[in-house]
């Protein structure tokens, strides 16, 4: 997966970048660039998980950007159409995602994250009216070489978008200059300024934040800039800090209002002291029941999630095995996949796992002869046609998967396909 973003972005080229929606006055010449920026934000500390979706393309949902989007996606599609069956598949998926993410992010106006469009817009305006030097200073330690607040491209610091382990996969966008397209034109409506990089706050990061705030005199006195400087966390931007500070203040001083989203409260318990003991016990019981149900739900959710993960893993593994196994016979098979089976697409990751491959090949060759027109084969026919052309790029199963697979005889998964490696 890590390889993908790079692939996709590289493929996009400057042209697409310029197509990327900038809100307001977008000029196709504006360089949009997460790449250099990302280099300034190298690996982030493991304690922070940053959202992955990379490319900080500020696509907005204005109609303009929508057309831009479709232009882009169609462009992309065209570019890829000829090579749909090749590794453009991942890039197709990735690239639009990167961009779409941006636009959707803008959409989520209710969100108080770093990327709230309105907030960004306001903040952007504010900053623009501030000294540009201020801005430079603020971002000084981020190694940004060139900053043009007026840049039409509004793409804020993208780096935090990347998870630590992916941060190395900096998108090599063709745009060279390391501009922070954070604040583009103030004309941008609320939708425009997406500080795309979304920070995923962990408890550790929050601890550091709280410490910084306390050192700076408390949540009221502390300023985002000060906190940012104090925390000295790479990849953290003032956007992140600002919005987080806002949330923090709300949580401290109005603990009830920060809960949920306009959730109606159940019977208030504040007057508990005036209620008689019996009611108190009833309330306690009710709470106990509530927590039990919640625990149950959580438990089931975890189980379900694990199941889902394993199902996918298994599917991937099976598919890979079938590919290898049925290589010789596949061309002849045109049967359509049975209804209940999903024709898995060969993974488009260009990371073949050679040890696993050879290991499996041996066992599969044996089995291949034994199985004829088996169900699994049917399911993969369509797959095979395309995978054929793909040149058998296969996703390396996690080493764990084969073991899980084999060890999983008694799992609760339904109607497993016949194992081919037994």
């Amino acid at each position, binding site marked *: 997966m890590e390889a993908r973003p790079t692939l996709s972005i590289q493929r996009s080229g400057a042209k697409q970048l310029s197509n990327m929606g900038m809100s307001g006055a977008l000029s196709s010449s504006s360089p949009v660039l997460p790449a250099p920026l990302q280099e300034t934000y190298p690996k982030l500390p493991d304690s922070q998980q940053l959202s992955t979706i990379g490319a900080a393309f500020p696509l907005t949902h204005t109609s303009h950007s929508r057309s831009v*989007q479709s232009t882009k996606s169609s462009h992309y599609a065209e570019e890829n159409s000829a090579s749909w069956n090749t590794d453009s598949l991942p890039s197709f998926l990735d690239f639009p995602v990167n961009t779409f993410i941006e636009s*959707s992010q803008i959409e989520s106006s209710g969100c108080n994250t770093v990327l709230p469009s309105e907030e960004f817009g306001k903040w952007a305006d504010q900053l623009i009216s501030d000294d540009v030097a201020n801005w430079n200073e603020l971002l000084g330690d981020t190694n940004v070489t060139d900053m043009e607040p007026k840049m039409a491209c509004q793409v804020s610091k993208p780096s935090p978008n990347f998870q630590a382990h992916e941060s190395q996969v900096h998108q090599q966008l063709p745009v060279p200059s390391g501009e922070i397209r954070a604040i583009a034109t103030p004309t941008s409506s609320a939708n425009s300024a997406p500080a795309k990089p979304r920070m995923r706050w962990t408890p550790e990061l929050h601890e550091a934040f709280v410490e910084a705030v306390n050192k700076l005199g408390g949540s009221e006195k502390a300023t985002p800039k000060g906190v940012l400087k104090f925390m000295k966390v790479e990849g953290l931007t003032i956007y992140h800090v600002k919005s987080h500070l806002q949330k923090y203040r709300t949580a401290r001083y109005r603990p009830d209002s920060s809960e949920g989203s306009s959730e109606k*409260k159940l019977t208030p318990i504040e007057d508990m002291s005036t209620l008689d003991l019996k009611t108190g016990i009833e309330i306690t019981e009710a709470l106990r029941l509530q927590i039990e149900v919640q625990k149950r739900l959580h438990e089931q959710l975890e189980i379900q999630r694990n199941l889902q993960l394993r199902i996918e893993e298994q599917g991937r593994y099976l598919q890979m095995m079938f590919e290898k196994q049925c290589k010789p016979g596949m061309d002849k098979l045109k049967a359509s996949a049975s209804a209940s089976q999903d024709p898995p697409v060969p993974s488009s990751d260009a990371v073949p796992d050679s040890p696993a491959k050879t290991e499996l090949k041996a066992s599969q060759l044996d089995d291949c002869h034994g199985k004829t027109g088996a169900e699994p084969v049917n399911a993969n026919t369509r797959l095979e046609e395309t995978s054929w052309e793909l040149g058998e790029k296969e996703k390396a199963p996690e080493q764990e998967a084969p073991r899980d697979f084999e060890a999983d005889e008694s799992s609760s998964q339904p109607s497993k396909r016949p194992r081919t490696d037994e």
Partner: protein
Amino acid sequence: MKFGKRLKQQMQETLPGWRDKFLSYKELKQLVRQISSSPTQSNGSLGYGKAEKEFVYLLNNEIEKFNAFFMEQEEDFVIRHKELQQRIQRVVDKWGQNGSQASEANYKDEMAKIRKDIVDFHGEMVLLVNYSNVNYTGLAKILKKYDKRTGGLLRLPFIQKVLQQPFFTTDLISKLVKECESTIEAVFPAEDGKKTKEPKQTITVAEEGIFRNTVAALQTMQDIRRGSSTYGHFSLPPLNLPDSDLTQSIQLNSPIPII
């Protein structure tokens, strides 16, 4: 449309601010229908029709929507989690463990408030995990439909991508949930005498609120997994709920406040 209906139900039952953050399943289904009925599409076609583009576009948007919402909520939870811990600490410090010092009424009062807040907080987090799961399930289903109807090969790579998205990686939230549970157990130790009784009569949960939503979520989950006509290798087995009388004894009424 079974899932679609369930999803709708869930959305209705969910917390008000969350309603528009769920998967646009119906829309996606319509697109799939469009694609499969479009004459230009043939199996193995390399071209990409407008509907397909729209489909992928929408999918990506949805994923982004989930991510944004999820991470925002997560951030909130991280903050509130810490605040709750601090709040408890303050009360304990002020009035001693188990209210050994100072006014017992005050202590009880505070603790009662905290208890309710923490239980609700726990519930909200669980609901977020549920949100993540429901949307993932929806995505998996719609992708399966897409592949099936259009002969496309979108499902696997997309799902692989989805599995890595922030909204699906709920480990942090689960961790917070468990921490919450241990805090609750530590601070509000269960009185053994009372624990044995199971609710004999049906409890009616009428008001809107976290509890209602979690019950609804559980029931929906159970329903979705009841088994379907397209049961296959990628389907989840039926839900196995231990203590099923726990949830069966709870009945959801329409959200009209009782009092």
